[in-house]
Every structure is written in C-alpha cells, then in structure tokens.
C-alpha cells in the first residue's frame, strides 16, 4: 500500500467518524464542506476532521483512496460513505442518522 494510502487508512480507522474537508468545522473554506459539517453537527455525533488544504498529499491521495473525485469525504468506521451530496440525500431520507445509530457511533 502506498505511503499516502497507509496514512489515510490509519486516519480513517483511528476514529469512528472522519470528515476530510476544506478548512475546519469552525472555519469551513468551501460551501460543500460547510454543508457536510452542518449535517454532522445536526446528527450530533463526535467526529474528527482533516483539513486537506493543509496537506496536499492527503488532498490528492484521498481521491484515489476512495475513487471519489471531490472533497469533502465522509468515513464511518473506516468505510467511505460519500461526499456532501450523498450525505445530504442520506440525511434527508433519515438514512444517515440510522446508519450512525446502527454503527453505534459516539455522540458529541
């Protein structure tokens, strides 16, 4: 496994919920990342975030890791869930909250 892939693998397996985003939850630097943060905050789960703007290797590597071309990217229990659009569709259908409950993810 390439260096960046093992770095990413460590990150996503190190926390229940990880959001790779542009900026930070307090200061999101892109509308899609900001929407993803709002959704997670609404779900009330604890999560770690990775600011890809501070790490170009991760910023590019994450797209190959998940075979998904854009940021943000959400991982739950090490599995890629989706980007901002998928999170929104799942949230609106109640599927995101259900999945987080089923995965017994820690509350914020």
């Amino acid at each position, binding site marked *: 496994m390439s260096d960046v892939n093992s770095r990413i693998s460590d990150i996503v397996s190190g926390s229940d919920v990880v959001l790779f985003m542009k900026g930070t939850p307090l200061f999101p630097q892109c509308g899609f990342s900001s929407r993803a943060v709002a959704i997670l905050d609404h779900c009330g789960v604890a999560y770690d975030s990775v600011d890809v703007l501070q790490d170009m290797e991760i910023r590019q590597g994450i*797209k190959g890791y998940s075979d998904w*071309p*854009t*940021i943000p990217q959400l991982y739950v229990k090490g599995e*890629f869930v989706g980007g901002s659009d*998928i999170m929104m569709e799942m949230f609106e259908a109640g599927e995101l909250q259900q999945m987080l409950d089923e995965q017994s993810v820690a509350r914020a």
Partner: protein
Amino acid sequence: MPMSAGEIERLIATALPGAEIELTDLAGDDDHWAARVTAPQFAGKSRVQQHKMVYDALGGRMGGALHALQLSTAIPT
C-alpha cells in the same frame, strides 16, 4: 475553466441514454452547477454508485474543469 449546460448535458446523455437531466446554474458563471439526473440505469445501484456513474460520464472533469457540481440522482418512478 467553466463548462456550459449543453456540454454537461451532452456528456451525461451520451453515457446514460434516456436520462432526464435538470441543470441549474448556481452562480451564473458556468462553474457552479446543480444537476438532478433521473436515469433507468441507476436501478439497483447505491447512491455512491449512481453518483460515480455521473462523474464517470463527465470523464474526469469533476473537481477539475468542472469546479462544483451539486448532484442528486433518482430512478424513474
């Protein structure tokens, strides 16, 4: 480098014949689009797979030539 509505529609329609494509220019700059794609080919596919099918149709332009695409997908009812 923005993309026109016609270009986006042509790429998606070519890869997903019969798809219904609704485009909204979010910022008036041909670079921030919202798209709703309804296609029979999505049947039985997960949301991630459906979105990947649209990204593949755009031939790797997603996140590059096409800066922002707010995407929602559906299966014809």
